[in-house]
């Protein structure tokens, strides 16, 4: 009896570990904690000499703990500590009215508008390309090499050319950025949708043939629904790439607004904390975009009978 009552606590704590919420989030939380710890250590190591030199330049006496504390709150650290970045991010998001030029929300919105337009254009272009490729063998041979080549040129090199050419055509602001973003993000959509449009089984295609369906009916009733899983997978890749495209497009234009502009001015003036806060904003934005597509995907999949 006693042994039995003694043995009780152990299974209970194991049961706690098996609790769905803990089972789901414990690995992520552990990972984040480990990364934050490494980040702090790196911040101390990288800022150490910077802070120590500061003390020596001012010829004050200092203890090791002073340096240690100094690495946590340097004004322009080599690597800002996580809490500094979070503070700057929080301040950037909530410290100003959303449309103030110093607000991260404002800059994120500027980049978001270019991202969304570019994503829309790029996804549309990618689907159209995939349609052309699936329906014509000549186009498949003619187009595919160019599509692949297009992605070999670094976009950072192309972006200024785009900006200059489009600027000469009288296009400024949102559209050139979106076009650069579209240029990057059509690729995964085109490749994914070629795969998706050709994914119906031979039997399904032959059934359509026995019913003498028109090519258009085969497209809308068979190829299109069969490619939906491929569409969402490639859209998730495309949306994050299109954000990168929009940010990159802001760099050579010397844009005064947008996450790219924040990154650029941060690096000009050695505002590393601002730089990192802008990076966090970009990451949050990308996760949110992917999350939205994931939600739409789930809703569509449920309607299409996913188990």
């Amino acid at each position, binding site marked *: 009896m006693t042994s039995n009552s003694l043995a009780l606590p152990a299974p209970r704590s194991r049961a706690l570990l098996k609790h769905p919420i803990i089972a789901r989030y414990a690995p992520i939380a552990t990972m984040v904690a480990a990364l934050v710890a490494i980040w702090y250590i790196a911040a101390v190591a990288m800022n150490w000499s910077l802070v120590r030199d500061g003390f020596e330049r001012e010829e004050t006496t200092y203890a090791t703990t002073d340096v240690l504390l100094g690495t946590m709150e340097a004004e322009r650290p080599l690597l800002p500590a996580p809490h500094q970045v979070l503070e700057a991010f929080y301040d950037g998001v909530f410290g100003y009215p959303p449309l103030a030029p110093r607000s991260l929300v404002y800059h994120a919105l500027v980049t978001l508008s270019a991202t969304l337009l570019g994503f829309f254009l790029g996804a549309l272009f990618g689907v159209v390309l995939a349609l052309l490729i699936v329906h014509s063998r000549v186009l498949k041979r003619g187009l595919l090499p160019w599509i692949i080549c297009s992605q070999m040129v670094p976009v950072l090199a192309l972006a200024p050319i785009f900006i200059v050419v489009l600027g000469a055509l009288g296009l400024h602001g949102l559209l050139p950025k979106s076009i650069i973003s579209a240029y990057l993000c059509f690729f995964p959509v085109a490749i994914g949708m070629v795969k998706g449009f050709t994914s119906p*089984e031979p*039997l*399904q295609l*032959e*059934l*359509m*043939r*026995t*019913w*003498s*369906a028109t090519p258009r*009916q085969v497209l809308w*009733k*068979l190829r299109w*629904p*069969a490619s*939906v899983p491929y569409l969402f997978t490639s859209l998730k890749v495309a949306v994050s790439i299109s954000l990168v495209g929009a940010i990159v497009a802001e760099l050579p234009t010397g844009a005064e607004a947008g996450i790219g502009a924040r990154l650029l001015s941060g690096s000009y003036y050695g505002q590393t904390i601002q730089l990192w806060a802008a990076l966090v904003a970009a990451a949050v934005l990308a996760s949110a975009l992917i999350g939205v597509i994931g939600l739409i995907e789930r809703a569509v999949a449920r309607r*299409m*009978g996913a*188990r």
Partner: protein
Amino acid sequence: MASPKPSISIVSEATAETDRGEGASHVRSPDPISAPKAPKRLVVDARNISLTFETADGRVDALSNVNLQVTEGEFVSFIGPSGCGKTTMLRVIADLQQPSSGALSVKGMSAEQARLARAYGYVFQAPALFPWRTIEKNLKMPLEIMGYSEFEQQQRVQRYLSMVNLTGFERKFPWQLSGGMQQRVSIARALSFDPDLLLMDEPFGALDEIVRDHLNEQLLQLWKSTRKTVLFVTHSIPEAVFLSTKIVVMSPRPGRIIDVIDCDFPPDRSLEIRERPEFLKVAQRVRIGLRAGHSYDE
């Protein structure tokens, strides 16, 4: 389960006394259910059909000089070992493959015209349902393509789902059904636009014995009630003898017809007939034909 639906007229001609032709009388088709003097139209008329294709290992004669006449209302089974061209023959009739030579007419048209006229329903070995469509929507697929009205589609879904005993499953998705049920859906789908000719390529091949027996009985009922012409590919001798009015025995390398056996058991036969001596006699003849045509030295 397999009870006939109210719309079904039970055909009453007594046919048991019709003597089975013992010889290889291909052309005479003792169709037990149609009226004795009705003019029989040829549904399939294939003359000297050959089909060869080149593979990496050389030329393959999938079909060699195949002659076949099928009249209205017949149930014709193709039986033979793999590679004998039975599926190929069905595909040629369906215009899914083109013969290298020979003349073929399907319901008085070329195979292509017949396909474009939606003259037949095809059932594959796999159900080939569209996983993103409910059962109801799967049945509607050919109807949508052929432009039936919404009302007509709904009526046909009800009619054909009840014909295969699947009423109540309209809103289910294919993965929620067993393999046998899925295959019944695919049969209902092939029937949904009411073709007079049904081409079935080993529809029950992937199912277990019990389900297969059950579906055999259902298919017999269906054929009896709708009087469609059925071309049926199978591996199973009992299945072929049980269902058919005519059994076409085929042999590989080159794919050819080596025997055509007439077979006319009473239309209201049940599975028990498989134990009867006259049934076993026909089965024996099919077996002999298969053995003769099969070279075991590979």
